[in-house]
């Protein structure tokens, strides 16, 4: 059974801080790892990673995958209150395109 574990469960920082969110996984026939941001109900797509060592970057957010050690990190620099959300990591393994999600990291950025 595919498994995704995220840490920490929750995190409180102040604006301007840099945060690193962790995602480790065990999956049969790994195909890709995805990060989502969930503020209210609908998760919104951030990144999809398929290759080790290649950083994906979007503004203050970046992510990298290590397929040997089976983990990914999501970095957010110069955090803002608008970054407050639950960040979800998911992996795509066996055929069928469904994703296995981790439990999420709840980030709160205080002014």
């Amino acid at each position, binding site marked *: 059974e595919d498994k995704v574990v995220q840490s920490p469960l929750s995190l409180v920082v102040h604006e301007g801080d840099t945060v690193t969110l962790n995602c480790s996984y065990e999956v049969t026939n790994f195909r890709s790892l995805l990060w989502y941001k969930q503020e*209210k*109900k609908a*998760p919104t*797509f951030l990144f999809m990673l398929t290759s080790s060592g290649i950083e994906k970057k979007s503004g203050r957010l970046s992510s990298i995958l290590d397929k040997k050690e089976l983990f990914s990190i999501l970095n957010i620099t110069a955090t803002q209150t608008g970054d407050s959300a639950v960040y*979800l990591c998911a992996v795509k393994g066996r055929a*069928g*395109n469904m994703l296995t999600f981790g*439990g999420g990291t709840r980030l709160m950025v205080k002014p």
Partner: protein
Amino acid sequence: GAGVSQSPSNKVTEKGKDVELRCDPISGHTALYWYRQSLGQGLEFLIYFQGNSAPDKSGLPSDRFSAERTGGSVSTLTIQRTQQEDSAVYLCASSLSEQTTNYGYTFGSGTRLTVV
């Protein structure tokens, strides 16, 4: 449509009643997924439709749960004889196809189901 549309946005039902949740995917998306998110938890896969293929129902938690997708577009998730543990946010997502996943899924805003 411009996005994935789900209805109703909130549903309160009495234990034992049946409920139907609707999902209208993005036009042209052949793949449609249902997930469930209990309070404070990650997303739990329920069922996946891809084109005209038989759906993958491996995530449905019991035979009280069923889903159909008519005409390859709108999907309905039905929960019969609801129980309190069915209370959750039910999220629908769609994508172009199994191969076209450069942007992952697009999720709807979900239906918050409360069974009292």
